[in-house]
């Protein structure tokens, strides 16, 4: 059974159709990536999934129950964190976690705050005011806050933005572990495609308010036919670039390297041609298409609409 199901969600702001007939589901223990360019409708969709934006049409169900009818019961088991929402500026981290803990039905609130502080390495900053924290620390508190009620469903809007790479890595590992231990279901948005590939089991791509793709990150990346061939050449760089221009191949020069974007099945032929032209190179690396390529292609398609 789907733990979260959105049926035919639409949202119109005046004449602007922000979300258009979006249906999605999230399985128990699944991490679903919600991707799309800025203004695609991701935040609007997430707001409707949380009940903080009324849809123009459609309905949201958690655990088989309607969010509009069972809001209180459902939100007790759901939480949300976004890098782009603030926390009360004047409160200390401890006070912030304390008041939020009272909004949920938790048995041992102080114990839970202690545990959360420990898990997210907040011990040193518990007594500090939110306004005195760095952007990364605020993001960490925001993510920690979303775990306060042992959520079964988590909606995380760019939870690792503005974090140092090591902390971002810690958060990603934490999410994967939490899912492993508690079967938590997570909806995850990020502009870091490598992160989405690492964390998400499935990805939904939204553009212009509509779902344009729904598959695993690998399958989505595989829909892209082109690869990137990177050559390091100390002597023949200009000549290789000239040859690519002659063949009308998309390429980019960076220092002593040239990156050629080419269909996978044409790679062998290209390398053979370069050899035939005596255009030698010192190093070669071939990058398979990634989710980022898929993202760029979809965004490009969308912007042409």
């Amino acid at each position, binding site marked *: 059974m789907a733990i979260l199901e959105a049926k035919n969600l639409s949202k119109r702001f005046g004449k602007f159709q922000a979300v258009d007939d979006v249906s999605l589901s999230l399985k128990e223990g699944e991490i679903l990536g919600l991707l799309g360019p800025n203004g695609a409708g991701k935040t609007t969709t997430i*707001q409707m999934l949380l009940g903080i*934006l009324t849809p123009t049409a459609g309905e949201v169900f958690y655990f088989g129950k309607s969010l509009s009818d069972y809001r209180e019961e459902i939100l007790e088991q759901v939480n949300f964190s976004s890098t782009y929402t603030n926390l009360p500026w004047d409160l200390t981290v401890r006070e912030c976690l*304390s008041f*939020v*803990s009272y909004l*949920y039905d938790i048995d041992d609130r102080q114990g839970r705050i202690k545990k959360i502080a420990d898990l997210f390495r907040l011990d040193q900053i518990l007594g500090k005011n939110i306004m005195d924290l760095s952007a990364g620390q605020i993001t960490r508190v925001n993510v920690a806050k979303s775990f306060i009620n042992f959520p079964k469903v988590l909606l995380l809007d760019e939870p690792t933005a503005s974090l140092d790479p090591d902390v971002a890595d810690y958060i990603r590992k934490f999410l994967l572990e939490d899912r492993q231990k508690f079967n938590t279901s997570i909806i995850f948005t990020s502009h870091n495609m490598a992160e989405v590939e690492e964390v998400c089991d499935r990805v939904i791509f939204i553009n212009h308010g509509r779902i344009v793709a729904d598959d695993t990150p690998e399958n989505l990346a595989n829909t892209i036919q082109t690869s990137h061939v990177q050559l390091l050449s100390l002597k023949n760089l200009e000549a290789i670039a000239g040859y690519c221009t002659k063949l009308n191949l998309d390429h980019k020069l960076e220092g002593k390297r040239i990156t050629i974007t080419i269909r996978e099945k044409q790679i062998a032929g290209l390398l053979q041609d370069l050899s035939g032209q005596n255009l030698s190179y010192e190093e070669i690396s071939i990058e398979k298409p990634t989710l980022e390529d898929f993202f760029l292609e979809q965004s490009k398609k969308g912007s042409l609409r």
Partner: protein
Amino acid sequence: MRLHRIWGVVLRYNYLFKHSLDRQVDAFYWPTVDLVLWGVTSSYIASQGGSVNQLLLMVVSGIVLWTILYRGQYEFTVNILEEVWNKNLINMFVSPLKLSEWVAAFSLLGLSKAIVSSGFAALMALFLYKAHIFAHGFLLLPFLFLLLMTGWCVGLVVGGLILRYGTRVQIFAWGMVSIIAPFSAVYYPLSALPNWAQKVAVIIPSSYVFEGSREVITSGILDWHKVIIALSLNVFYLALATAFFKSSFKKVLDRGLVKFK
């Protein structure tokens, strides 16, 4: 309604009060300044001819009782504004918190801050002018509660306006309650108002409260007739204000809490 959630909201604003000098000044400093300025002024005017005690008691009791109405609305309006400034409404309403629990917390905060602020002002009045505003203590209680109710009504209306129009109308959080002050006859008897204003005062619950309170303070007599009229008006306005507040929140949800500012 769940008590722990109401307590969570109360905690959130009490923490804020603890950290905010602005809030503390609003709660204690201004009532004291008003008492000193208006108390001394009325003493002087009365000394030029008239009963010193009578005039002083009228003005000082007006200040103390107005504090109750003011605090009742302030805890709604300024706390809602605080959430808008902090963009914290999302954190509140992605939780199971209900609108009614949020409102209940504001009402509770209004009650507690009204007790603290007006109690402090009453002590200052006693200390500065030997004015025993609560000499007939329990007889004033119905009026005190009615003032708080009027404060809640104003708070719900202004809170609803802030929800609808955001920080563009934030000045109402402090200023709108003053609109009913002249008609409430806070510092003077109702008869001192011009005729047209007296007609307006008929539909303002606090006008009955201030008139009735002055009777209690000066003669120890409680006019139940005034209590009943003020209570009826308050219940009527509270129902309207609640409906307005709820519809304003619905409008916010139509636009989405992320966009709210």
